């Protein structure tokens, strides 16, 4: 499969909008997971983000927290992720999304080598600040695995230019103050305010015209997708809205149809 970053860049050049889907690896049996990936591919999804569960997912809302708990309870381990990644990356370009500690404990160099070997082409760590990303970025030369950095509505202009310069593959723009998922919170806090993303996206493109900017967190409807496209995003990332359906046992066809409806 093609490299995720290269795919997104090519689509930006040809003015095609992209859509990535996040699903927690190990949250459902492998067979159903892979059938769902097939359905997503048919629906026109551009790429996949495979979540690797972490015990303490600080940026996650209830849906993905629960999915991580399910996966860990079923004894899902790093070698299982690599196996699933190999299978998924034959279907769609793939990134791995997890937290810093599992990667550190594996050893950065070893983790990159293994992800590359399994066909993964990007790593997304919401708790890796740009200041600490150096060792990860250095590994790209060898393994061609991008370290994708995240920006948010709270990001100041100075910091945005640093993130835009340092990110690889694409810029992950978090849509709102808040965790993943939208409105399904266990606390009153999870209804974060969405930021005004247009100026941030325009500034990112001005600084680095070839860089795809994708918006994620809380994307769950056709209107959300349209709104982000209108503000200049090269695409969106859908996580909790798909994971909710996956965890609830919805069929691959239903999930495919849902994602197709987002694409319009």
């Amino acid at each position, binding site marked *: 499969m093609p490299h995720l970053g290269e795919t997104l860049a090519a689509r930006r050049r040809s003015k095609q909008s992209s859509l990535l889907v996040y699903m927690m690896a190990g949250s459902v049996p492998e067979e159903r997971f892979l059938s769902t990936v097939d359905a997503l591919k048919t629906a026109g999804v551009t790429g996949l983000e495979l979540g690797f569960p972490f015990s303490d997912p600080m*940026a996650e809302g209830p849906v993905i927290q629960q999915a991580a708990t399910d996966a860990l309870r079923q004894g899902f381990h790093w070698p299982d992720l690599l196996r699933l990644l190999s299978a998924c990356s034959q279907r769609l370009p793939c990134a791995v999304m997890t937290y810093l500690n599992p990667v550190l404990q594996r050893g950065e160099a070893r983790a990159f080598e293994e992800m590359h070997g399994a066909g993964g082409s990007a790593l997304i760590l919401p708790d890796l600040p740009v200041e600490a990303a150096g060792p990860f970025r250095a590994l790209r030369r060898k393994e061609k695995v991008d370290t994708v950095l995240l920006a948010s509505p709270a990001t100041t202009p100075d910091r945005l230019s640093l993130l835009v310069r340092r990110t690889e593959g694409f810029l992950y723009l*978090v849509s709102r103050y808040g965790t993943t998922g939208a409105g399904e919170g266990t606390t009153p806090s999870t209804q974060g305010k969405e930021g005004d993303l247009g100026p941030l996206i325009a500034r990112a493109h001005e600084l680095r015209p070839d860089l795809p900017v994708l918006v994620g967190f809380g994307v769950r409807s056709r209107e959300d997708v349209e709104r982000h496209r209108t503000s200049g995003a090269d695409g969106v990332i859908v996580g909790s809205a798909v994971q909710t359906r996956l965890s609830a046992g919805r069929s691959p066809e239903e999930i495919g149809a849902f994602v197709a409806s987002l694409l319009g």
Partner: protein
Amino acid sequence: MPEWYGSFGGAYVPETLVPALKALEEAWRTARRDPAFKAELARLSREWGGRPTPLYFAENLTREIGGAQIYLKREDLVHGGAHKFNNALGQALLAKRLGKTRLIAETGAGQHGVATAMVGAKLALRTEVYMGSVDMERQKPNVLRMRLLGATVRPVDHGAKTLKEAINEAFRDWITNVQTTYYLIGSAVGPHPFPSIVSDFQSVIGKEILRQSKQAWGGHPDLVVACVGGGSNAIGTFQPMLRTPVKLLGVEAGGSGSSLAVGSASLTKGRPGVLQGMRTYLLQDAEGQVLETESIAAGLDYAGVGPEHAFLKESGRVEYTSVTDREALDAFHRLCRAEGILPALEPSHALAEAMRRARDLPKTARIVVTLSGRGDKDLEVVAQHAPPG
């Protein structure tokens, strides 16, 4: 204000929190040099908080043990019943300075939640406290106190339902409401600048110990002992003594002490990793999943520890050890009977180790134990265990 303690510390947080942490660092940088801020903190600590706290010679206990002299730094006498007051007051004044209107906090034993509820009431800041549902059950009196003081207590039902999960939930709230809300973290943990801010506000403990020991016997202690959960009472005790010849000893919770259990002893049984914004020692499995911990003391029941302690362990300046639930309970009863003081289960761990060391030291040696809080919150837990024979 250090961001790194050797290779420990840092600020491993989602991007949304970065500007807030930078603003906090800046606010603290100016506040600590502002005479008006310092005067307000000193006045409230004295008039409202009851500082300074006494350094008390535990004469009966010393006689019973028959070794070194044991002194207690009486943080149990601070307003609210624990050292948590020192940090909660300082940070709440910072929150005001930053123009925030809402405080959130996590709490394990409930003492930090109570302290935050107190300062929230006093400074008219809406206060919400996250607490694991297991901790709410075992520290009931503090849940009631927080509510009486006007705070909302939010139960957390993930994972082990204790302190670590409460911290995760507080961070999630902060990520969402960071524009209006101040996260008043309760120990010397989390991303920079929290560990150094908490350490600064708690260092009043160690400064007073040095001053009081000079007054009492014209020197400093030979050994100073404090319990380590996240490590705030310990770092506040140790910080001013790092460049003195005083021997420093941190005591973690060993839990049930069974050979399989790790208790909550991150420094003695863990390895470095990244959790909740900091690089530090963690109890974790081979793949970096953080383990569920156990301790009779809710305030010590945590898989991580403040990054400065990780550094002080590696540098060898501070010795760290652990004490089991049973040993802590025995020390608890011993202090009740010998001195008429009912300690919290957390500092009972420090006391247990101090008593052990006292036996092997000459009568001329002086040990200071930071008695970080009082034990009223623990009566139910203690009653469930057999008293010593």
